[in-house]
């Protein structure tokens, strides 16, 4: 096998060192300020995704439904990242847990419609204002336990 190795000069390295620019502390503050302005649109988009997810869950079959799981995965993965912007970071963790769960189910061929449903209803719960931090942490802990239950392939015995 032939391998060619090149060590390129990156223009980005030179640009970053150019005079001017921003101190790290100011740049990060600017970025956080910009993100704060997105909150209303992110909330609306996350709620729209949640409604789509609830509709898809309502049609998820009782027996193994790979297409249905794929659909819910596609919705959930699009929402990850929005929770942080909306001031509900627990939503991101719940969505990652839902994606993990669906990935485990589709990989191992096991099926648990209820586990998916718990995640979808938790998404709704975590979107709501007024849930204490400890309550959100308890919900996330429960969701992650459910996902982990399916992380390993079933034993033959």
């Amino acid at each position: 096998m032939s391998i060619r190795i090149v060590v390129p000069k990156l223009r980005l390295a030179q640009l970053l060192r150019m005079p001017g620019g921003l101190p790290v502390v100011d740049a990060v503050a600017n970025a956080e300020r910009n993100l704060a302005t997105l909150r209303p649109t992110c909330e609306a988009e996350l709620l729209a995704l949640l409604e789509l997810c609830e509709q898809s869950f309502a049609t998820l079959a009782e027996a193994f439904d790979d297409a249905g799981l794929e659909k819910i995965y596609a919705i959930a993965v699009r929402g990850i990242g929005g929770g942080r912007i909306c001031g509900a970071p627990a939503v991101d963790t719940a969505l990652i847990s839902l994606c993990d769960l669906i990935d485990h189910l589709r990989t191992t061929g096991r099926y648990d419609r209820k586990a998916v449903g718990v995640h979808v209803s938790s998404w709704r719960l975590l979107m709501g204002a007024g849930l204490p931090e400890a309550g959100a942490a308890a919900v996330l802990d429960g969701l992650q336990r459910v996902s982990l239950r399916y992380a390993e392939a079933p034993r033959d015995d």
Partner: protein
Amino acid sequence: MALDPQSRIRFNLEGAAVLLVDETPMGMSILVSVVTGLGAKLLYRCSNVEQAQEAVAQHHIDLAIIDGLAPSGAGYDLVKWIRQNAREPNCFAPILLTTGHTPANDIVRARDCGGNIIIRKPIAPIVLLERIIWASKEGRPYLFSETYVGPDRRFQDKPPPAGAGRRRGDAEAAPEATAGDEAMDADIDRKAGQAS
């Protein structure tokens, strides 16, 4: 790699051309907010692979931030395309891959597509900045082989553990391997600083 968020160290992204790829309006808005907050001014925003390929073909790109585009994983194919098909210097551009979640069957694809690093969402500005600075560091070799094109994924320059060969099969192949290096006909052509 940790960068102190309170640091007064300056960096300048003003002159950098940044390619952003994310198919969701929310994901794109988040990326744009973070990157412009960090000082970038010239952005190419693409919501699909075709737009991104066109932007890469037509413009000089200094940095790319590309979503994996789960569940299809088309973002990984885009990165591979940039590494294998884009002209210099775009084929060497630092590429940060973002992902909300990577399905188990896409992990190898994500690893092998040629991105510099994968960033898991939600993206914090300080983390993105750290990764941009890290990916921009010069001196990281890029490999061109039949199966992989992209930055060298090895970060440590250590010899194999004592008593172990370079590859798993070395122990069995040891008697034949004494004849020389014919078995390994790698044509390593190190061209430091050739591309600019």
